[in-house]
């Protein structure tokens, strides 16, 4: 280190912004070099003097009092009376610079409104679909207690092993033997898994039930996405209804501090399980399961199509 380097780094040294090793080098140089030593002392003095002159300035007691009063009136006033609104309005026009921003906000509001209407209308259609399911239909879609138990237990026993897993998690090819629709399940789910870290992807089981299992974490919380076969044991009625549960929102369950959200397609049931509060889990489930459901559905449709073709070909023979 020469004197130029020393002078360049000196201010950062005084602010404590240098690395420990650099601090040592600086001190070593100052010890050997007299002009730099006095420069160090001078700059330190200057810094202290700056701090001293500036610290003399204090806000007046009067201004502090009026600040406290304004805070207090703000806290009590904004309890829903009219003056709050009027103040807001007046202040808005005082800040002319905000007007372009307000115009943009207005436009956004219009676009948002139009979009909202569109969504509402679409929701309407969904409602009609739900309405098309009679109470008997909905009863037929009820999941069995043993399935809930198996799903929750699988999350409990399997997911914690992977909480800190760093190995790149990818659904192994062996999943094909379990269920071809679950090949690449991790890639499919990635679309809805923004903000989550994928820790594991595999096939596992609890009792007689097998799952394709994706383990995610978010802020140290474990989240499982589990896909299983919609068989007769999975449903309370003991038989698989010929219609799927796609018109339903997530079916929610709680099981020993766990929250479960479930979706059904014609041949699969998709669960999202976590220890999050039930509402959060459901919101997450909706985001996470949607691409999975779409994928499973199209896989099911195409496999039905293939089966048909196979049957037709066999008939031709």
């Amino acid at each position, binding site marked *: 280190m020469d004197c130029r380097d020393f002078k360049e780094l000196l201010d950062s040294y005084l*602010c404590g912004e240098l690395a420990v090793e650099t601090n040592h080098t600086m001190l070593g140089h100052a010890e050997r070099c007299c002009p730099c030593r006095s420069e160090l002392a001078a*700059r330190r003095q200057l810094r202290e003097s700056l701090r001293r002159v500036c610290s003399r300035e204090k806000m007046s007691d009067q201004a502090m009092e*009026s600040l406290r009063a304004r805070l207090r009136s703000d806290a009590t006033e904004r309890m829903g009376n009219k003056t709050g609104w009027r103040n807001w309005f007046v202040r808005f026009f005082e800040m002319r610079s905000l007007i372009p921003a307000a115009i943009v906000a207005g436009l956004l509001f219009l676009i948002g409104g139009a979009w909202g209407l569109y969504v509402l209308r679409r929701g309407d259609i969904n409602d009609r679909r739900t309405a098309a399911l009679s109470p008997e239909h909905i009863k037929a879609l009820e999941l069995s207690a043993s399935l809930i138990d198996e799903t929750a237990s699988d999350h409990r026993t399997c997911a914690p092993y992977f909480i800190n897993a760093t190995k790149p998690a990818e659904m192994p090819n062996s999943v094909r033997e379990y269920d071809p629709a679950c090949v690449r399940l991790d890639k499919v789910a990635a679309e809805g898994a923004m903000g989550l870290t994928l820790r594991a992807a595999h096939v596992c089981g609890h009792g007689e039930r097998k799952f394709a299992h994706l383990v995610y974490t978010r802020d140290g919380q474990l989240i499982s996405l589990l896909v299983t076969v919609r068989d007769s044991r999975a449903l309370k009625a003991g038989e698989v209804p010929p219609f799927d549960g796609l018109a339903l929102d997530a079916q929610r369950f709680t099981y020993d501090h766990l929250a479960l959200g479930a979706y059904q397609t014609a041949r699969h049931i998709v669960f999202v399980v976590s220890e999050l509060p039930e509402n959060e889990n459901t919101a997450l489930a909706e985001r996470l399961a949607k691409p999975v459901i779409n994928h499973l559905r199209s896989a099911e449709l195409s496999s039905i199509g293939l089966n048909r073709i196979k049957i037709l070909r066999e008939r031709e023979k």
Partner: protein
Amino acid sequence: MEQNDKLRRLETFEAEALGFSGQLFRVALRVCRDREKAEDLVQETYLQAWRSFHRFELGTNLRAWLYRILFNVYYSGLRRHRLELAPIEEAIAETIAYDPPTPQHLTDEEVLAALERLPRDFQIPVALADVEEMSYREIADALQIPLGTVMSRLHRGRKLLRMELAGYARDAGYRVAN
């Protein structure tokens, strides 16, 4: 009931945040160069902070958050975004290559006068670093400018300050005052 909750929250806010009023005022004074305006700026900062206090996570850096609000309030009043360098000031900073030894035995008045003569864009980072002892990172957050910019402004600002104090800037014919 709700009212009581709100007042209790206000008490927490006051206990946590009002302690920084001295620091905020000093910086506001550097920014506004006028006591009354600075007091207004601090008051407005606290009002805004209180209104969004529910979004603040207790335990994170309250001081940096308050500074950020202060500069937001200031910028929004200015209609000019961020601390922007006027080209001429930039040019002055570039041309001064010589770094004289820092003079010793300066009076406080000389130091204050030199600081006040610095262009605001250099003066504020210097005040934040050397008076308020904020880290470079905190300054970047508060002013919402990149860390590299903070460092270069500090470098030039401190150099200009030393030049001012040594009388070099004026002797060499550079006008540093705004």
